[in-house]
């Protein structure tokens, strides 16, 4: 099956083995541009590994990944972010803890404002202007996610839920096409979960960003996602609307069987 050049991500036969363990066993799926697609499944079903293979953290054993027709298989992570505009989050490493909230955002915007490596060493008026623009953009995003009052706080010292909101805002700085979120709601209190969902929806509707969200919180997934994928033992066992998927006997069985 050839890749769909219009798909935000075309995943073709991705397999990832660690020795004799098969973490992802041949997954093929298209993520359409502009959709919010959930990815769920029991622990150890290969969700994170599939993410890793799509974003360059790991190289798939076989199979290919395309972003709008561009073959990004085996690219380094920084190149996938810069050239394919596919950015991801991590479950644990959320923000740069030593930097201020604002500096976190500036850092994430640098890949657009300072394209060449030589330009990153500049400290002249042009560089200062670029950083000022990034700070303005950062201020705007912080207002949207409701963190502008802690703009100068050290990122490591704000609550975990706030760090996740900061992480989300950071990912918008480089104006990506696709955002892959790895458990954005885990460890976040219910009020901040609502705020996170609002932010995802807004970015999707206003900026047309495609989302793939790994999440265990099924209620949140039903409310948020246009489409839900379920992985079990490295294989895709369901793909459809959230309501249909959660009633699918194969899905129910996978969850009960653990």
């Amino acid at each position, binding site marked *: 099956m050839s890749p769909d050049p219009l798909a935000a991500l075309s995943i073709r036969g991705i397999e990832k083995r660690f020795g004799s363990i098969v973490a992802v066993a041949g997954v093929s799926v298209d993520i359409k541009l502009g959709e919010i697609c959930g990815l769920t499944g029991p622990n150890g079903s290969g969700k994170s590994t599939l993410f890793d293979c799509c974003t360059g953290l790991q190289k798939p054993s076989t199979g290919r990944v395309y972003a709008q027709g561009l073959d990004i298989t085996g690219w380094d992570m*920084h190149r996938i*972010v810069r050239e394919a505009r596919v*950015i991801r989050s991590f479950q644990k490493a959320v923000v*740069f803890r030593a930097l201020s909230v604002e*500096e976190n955002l*500036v*850092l994430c915007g640098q*890949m657009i404002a300072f394209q060449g490596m030589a330009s990153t060493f*500049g400290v002249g008026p042009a560089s200062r202007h670029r950083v000022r623009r990034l700070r303005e953009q950062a201020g705007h995003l912080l207002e949207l996610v409701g963190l502008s009052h802690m703009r100068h706080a050290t990122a490591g010292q704000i609550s975990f839920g706030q760090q996740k909101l900061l992480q989300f805002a950071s990912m918008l700085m*480089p104006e990506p096409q696709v955002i892959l979120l790895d458990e954005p709601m885990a460890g976040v209190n219910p009020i901040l979960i609502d705020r996170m969902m609002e932010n995802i929806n807004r970015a999707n509707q206003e900026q047309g960003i495609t989302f793939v969200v790994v999440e265990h919180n099924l209620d949140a997934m039903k409310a948020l996602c246009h489409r839900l994928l379920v992985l079990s033992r490295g294989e895709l066992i369901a793909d459809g609307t959230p309501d249909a998927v959660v009633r699918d006997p194969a899905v129910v069985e996978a969850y009960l069987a653990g």
Partner: protein
Amino acid sequence: MAMTGVNVHGSYIYANPRHGLRAAGFAVLVIALAAAPLVAGDYQLHALIVSMTFLLPALGLNLILGYAGMLSFAQMAFFGIGAYSSALTAMRWGTPFWLNLVVGGLAAGIVAVPLGIPALRLRRYSFVMCTLGFAVIAQTIAKNWISVTRGDLGLSQVPRPRIALWNGGFEITSITSYYYLALVLSVLAVLAFLTLVSSAAGRYMIAIREDETLAASVGTPTWHYRMIAFALSAVFAGVGGSFYVHYFTVISPTVFDPFYANTVLVIVLGGGVGTVGGVVLGSFLFVAVSEALRIAPDLRMIAYGLLLIVIVFACPEGLLPLFIRKIRFGGGTHVP
């Protein structure tokens, strides 16, 4: 992934230079140092010159450890490479001082690149061990490449710094003029360092120290910036070595001894890793203390060691953060 143990110092690192107080403190220090020859004797000036000589490799180590998160023991190897290459150039061709500095810095930086290619593939402790190996190899070469380095005898009668564009000019001989030369060099080095770490590249280096995978996920070509940090740290050390050799006018393989490498490490960790002020403070304090302890040569190293232990227990983040907290509690002034 950043070195463990470094992140705890992170909250003292600021990438944006919005610090009027820091600039003021820096200016006061420079003025005080500029006035020092009015009151200080030759020996005190000598101790200050040695402090400023160590400031350069210490800034280099601060860059790679405090900003890019990698502990390197190769600083004194690069310091020695800078010293030898600068001395040999000056002895053979009678080059002016500025050119010797450039040669020393470039030689160290250029050697760092092929060393960095394999070393930077390693992480954490393996990287530390690898850089220790570089220092040992550098010393072995200096001892055994007798036709160039004269082995253990070392190089002597290295020319004094000649201040000239090319030919002529004047030679630095008095201790006071050496002192001012060291001061100018130190101020330039600190300014260069501050410029670097407050640039976008500096921000990427901090990102790598904090979390290399996260840094890559926001578009940082991490390998490139780690290499740049490693090479630039070598350049700082090489320039320091160049000044050192034209001040002492002798150089031997003892420059690669662990004692010097440890001194640089103590300056950075004791002063405050990831801070510029801490490294400046550390350079003056630890070199001065080491010199002052010469009054009791038998007990010198023991006293030095004990002092380090006390400092580690009293302020594990280094002295500068401790002073800052004291000021905050005392007067409520917010000093970065």
